[in-house]
């Protein structure tokens, strides 16, 4: 594993810049195919509404994956993640238009965990339409 950010160069409070990810219905269909999660709440508006959702919602794991990129792209190595967890606090509702939904994701070094293992904990924020969509989103990353 070869993270590009060194443990010594970060401190608590070091921020990972916020990035925007746009997600539309076609992205969800592609993700359904790639992940094998074909739950119709992620692509069938009629079905989603019948089970009480406002509209088609993005796979939680899709949003989680985009949040992981913010951390792994920063660290320089997706294999540098030691632990990663999120709570899906609110669904990302994806309208059937050419704009879809936008998720804004950022992160901040919350703790330096282990000087020897060179691990830090990042707290991740993810919002869509002004609402927090991931809660307790945290990644433990091994830095260089």
């Amino acid at each position, binding site marked *: 594993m070869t993270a590009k950010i060194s443990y010594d160069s970060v401190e608590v409070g070091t921020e990972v810049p916020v990035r925007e990810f746009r997600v539309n219905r076609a992205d969800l269909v592609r993700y359904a195919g790639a992940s094998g999660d074909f739950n119709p709440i992620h692509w069938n508006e009629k079905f989603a509404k019948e089970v009480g959702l*406002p509209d088609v919602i993005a796979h*939680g794991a899709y949003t989680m*994956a985009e949040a992981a*990129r913010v951390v792994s792209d920063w660290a320089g190595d997706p294999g540098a993640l030691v632990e990663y967890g*999120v709570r899906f606090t609110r669904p990302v509702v994806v309208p059937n238009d050419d704009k879809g939904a936008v998720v804004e994701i950022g992160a901040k070094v919350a703790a330096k965990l282990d000087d020897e293992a060179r691990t830090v904990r990042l707290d991740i924020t993810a919002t869509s339409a002004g609402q927090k969509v991931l809660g307790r989103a945290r990644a433990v990353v091994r830095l260089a």
Partner: protein
Amino acid sequence: MALDQSFVGRSYPPTAPYEVGREKIREFAESLGDTNPVHTDPEAARALGYPDVIAPPTFVFTITFKAAGKQVIEDPQLGLDYSRVVHGDQRFEYTRPVRAGDRLTVTSTIDSIKSLAGNDILSVRGEVHDESGDHVATSFTTLVARAADAEVEESR
């Protein structure tokens, strides 16, 4: 309808090996719009010290979710209403990233079953091992089967 508590602690047999292919990793990365070459170019992966392309960190969920789906979610005795299931939370512990050429088995265990405001909350742990029996990752998944008359916000 509350799920049967006696399922807590139940482990299912290890799944047949899932063989991870380079093109599957590519497909998954592309579905995320992730252009990091470490997912598609073996040379880029080797430059980071990996023997072959590695999957994005959440890829392992597709394998553990498939295992949980076939064994737990569709367990007729458990009786979970999949049409009302949403993903509540998800956590991974990684020993190493999933890579092309891996043959991975998943052992699923029901860690807990809770009932909250009519919602069934099911926590499933998936231990992922490679062909040599070495640990690759553990996935902790919480699924929420929403009550039939609940609004989605109330269940969260």
